[in-house]
C-alpha cells in the first residue's frame, strides 16, 4: 500500500475554488443593494426587477434565442446532409479534402471568421443585421454538426441499408426509416452543440452585427465596457442557471447516446 498524500486533494480543492470563486462572486453581488461589486450592503432583488422591466434587453434576449434556434435547426439539416455525403463518398482523397475543409471553421480563430465574413457580406451587399448574424451562425455551426453526426454514421453497418433495399425500400425510405433514426442521437447532440455555440458566440457576431441588431453577448460586452452595473450580475446569475440546465440536458443526451465519445469543451 502506498501512503496517500493529502497534497493532491489540497491542490484540486484550490483549483476548484479558483475556478468557481469568480462565478459565485458575480452571483453573490447580484443581490447587493449597494450597487457595487465591493461591499455588500443588504439583500435586494431590485436588479432582477430592473432586468425584467428592461424592454430593450428582453428584445435582445428574444433575438438571441431566435437566432440560436433558427441557425441550429438549419445548420443541423445541412450538417446531416453533409455528413451523409462525406460518409458515402467513394474517393478517399475527396473525402479527406472535404473533412479538412469542414474543420477549417472549427480551428479558425473567431476574429478571422468574423473579419472574413464581414468582408463577404459587404461584398455580397447583404445588409449587416439579423440576416448576416443568422447566416454566420449557420455557417460556423455546420461543421460542428458534421463532427457530431459522422461517428454515428460510420458506426452504422452498411448491411442495414442493403437489407432495407433488398426488402424493397425506396431511397427515401432508407433515409427516413433506417439511417435517420439510427443516427438521431448524433443529430440531437449536434443540434445542441450548435445551439450553445450560437448562444455563446461573441466575436463573430460582434463583427457582422450592424448598428440596429444586437445579441446578448454583444450587449454584455458593451455594458461591461462601460463599467460595473449589477444588472449584468443579475443577468449572469440567470444565464448560469440556464447553462446548468443546458449542460444537464446535453449530458442526458450523451448518456443515452451511451459512453460519451467526446465530452465537449466550449470554444
Amino acid at each position, binding site marked *: 500500500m502506498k501512503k496517500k498524500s493529502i497534497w*493532491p*486533494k489540497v*491542490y*484540486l480543492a484550490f*483549483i*476548484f475554488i*479558483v*475556478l*468557481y470563486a*469568480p*462565478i459565485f462572486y*458575480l452571483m453573490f453581488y447580484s443581490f447587493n443593494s449597494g450597487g457595487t*461589486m465591493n461591499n455588500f450592503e443588504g439583500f435586494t432583488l431590485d436588479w432582477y426587477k430592473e432586468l425584467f422591466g428592461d424592454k430593450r434587453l428582453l428584445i435582445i434576449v428574444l433575438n438571441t434565442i431566435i437566432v440560436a434556434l433558427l441557425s441550429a435547426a438549419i445548420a443541423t439539416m*445541412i450538417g446531416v446532409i*453533409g455528413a*451523409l*455525403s462525406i460518409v*458515402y463518398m467513394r474517393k478517399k482523397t475527396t473525402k479527406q479534402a*472535404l473533412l479538412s*475543409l*469542414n474543420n477549417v*471553421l472549427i*480551428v*479558425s*480563430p*473567431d*476574429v*478571422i471568421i468574423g*473579419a*472574413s*465574413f*464581414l*468582408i*463577404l457580406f459587404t*461584398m455580397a451587399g447583404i445588409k449587416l443585421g439579423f440576416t448576416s448574424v443568422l*447566416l*454566420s451562425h449557420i455557417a460556423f455551426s*455546420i461543421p460542428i454538426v458534421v463532427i457530431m453526426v459522422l461517428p454515428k454514421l460510420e458506426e452504422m453497418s452498411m448491411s442495414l441499408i442493403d437489407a432495407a433495399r433488398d426488402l424493397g425500400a425506396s*431511397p427515401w425510405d432508407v433515409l427516413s426509416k433506417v439511417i435517420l433514426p439510427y443516427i438521431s442521437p448524433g443529430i440531437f447532440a449536434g443540434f445542441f452543440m450548435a445551439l450553445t455555440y450560437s448562444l*455563446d458566440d*461573441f*466575436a463573430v457576431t460582434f*463583427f457582422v452585427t450592424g448598428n440596429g441588431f444586437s445579441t446578448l*453577448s454583444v450587449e*454584455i*460586452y458593451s455594458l*461591461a*465596457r462601460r463599467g*460595473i452595473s449589477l444588472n*449584468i450580475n443579475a443577468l*449572469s446569475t440567470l*444565464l*448560469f442557471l440556464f*447553462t446548468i440546465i443546458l*449542460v444537464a440536458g446535453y*449530458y442526458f443526451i450523451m448518456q443515452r447516446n451511451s459512453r460519451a465519445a467526446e*465530452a465537449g*469543451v*466550449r*470554444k
Partner: protein
Amino acid sequence: MNSKTRLFYLLPYVLWIGLFVVTPILLVVYYSFFDLHGNFTFANYEKLFTFVYMKMIASSFWYAFLITVFCLLIAYPAAYFITKTKYKQLLLLLVILPSWINLLLKAYAFLGIFSTYGAANNFLEVVGIGAQQILFTDFSFVFVSVYIFIPFMLLPIFNALDKLNPALIDASRDLGASAWTTFRKVVFPLTLSGVKSGVQAVFIPALSLFMITRLIAGNRVITLGTAIEQHFLVTQDWGMGSAIAVFLIITMFVIMIVTGTRKRGIQ
C-alpha cells in the same frame, strides 16, 4: 446509392464550403493587397515587417506563450490528480462546466474582483502588502486568460492520462525508476499528444482573443486579435487588418503542423 441522390446530398454542403469556407479566406487574402483607397499595393505587408508591428507581434506571441505555459503548469498536475480520484468523471464535468459560461461574464467578474476596492485588493490589504493597481495591467490579462483557458488545456491532458495503461507505471517503478524518472521517461512522453492538443487549444485563441485585452488590460496589451479588430471596426483599414489576418492564419497552420498529433503510444 445512385449518383443522383449522392449529388443531391452533396450540393448544399459543398455550396456551404464554397461560400463560407473557401471564399472568405480568399477574400481576406485579396483584401490584404489593397490600401485604404482601393489601390493594389504590397504596402500592408511591408508595414507588417516594420518595427512597430514586429514589436506588437512579438509581444502577442510572448503573452500567448506565457498563458500557454501557465495553463500547462497548472492543468497537468490537476488532470493527473483527477485521474487518480474515485470521482473522476464528476470532477471532469466540474472542470468543464465553467468553460460553458459566457467568456465575457467571466472577464466581467474580474472587473469587480480586481477593481481598486475589490476582493483581490482587500486580500492584499489583509496580508499586509497593501492595495495595488491590478486591473489594466499585463498581470491581470495573463491571469484572466489562464483562468479562462485552463479547461481547454485540462481536458485533452486528462483524456491522454486516462488512456495511459497503469501497468506501464508499475513496470517502471518495479524496474527501479524513481517517481520523477517514471514521470519524465514514461508518463509525460505517453501523454504528449494530449499536451500538444492542449497547447493548440490555448495558444491560438490566446493570440487572437480581443475581448479580454479590451476589457481587462485596457489598451496596455495588444494582441494579433486586438489589432485585427482595431483595423476592421475602428480605423476601417481593412487592407492592413487582412494582412494581419493572413499572418495569423499562416501562424495557425504552422502551429497545427508543429503540434500535429500522430497518435503514437496511446491505445
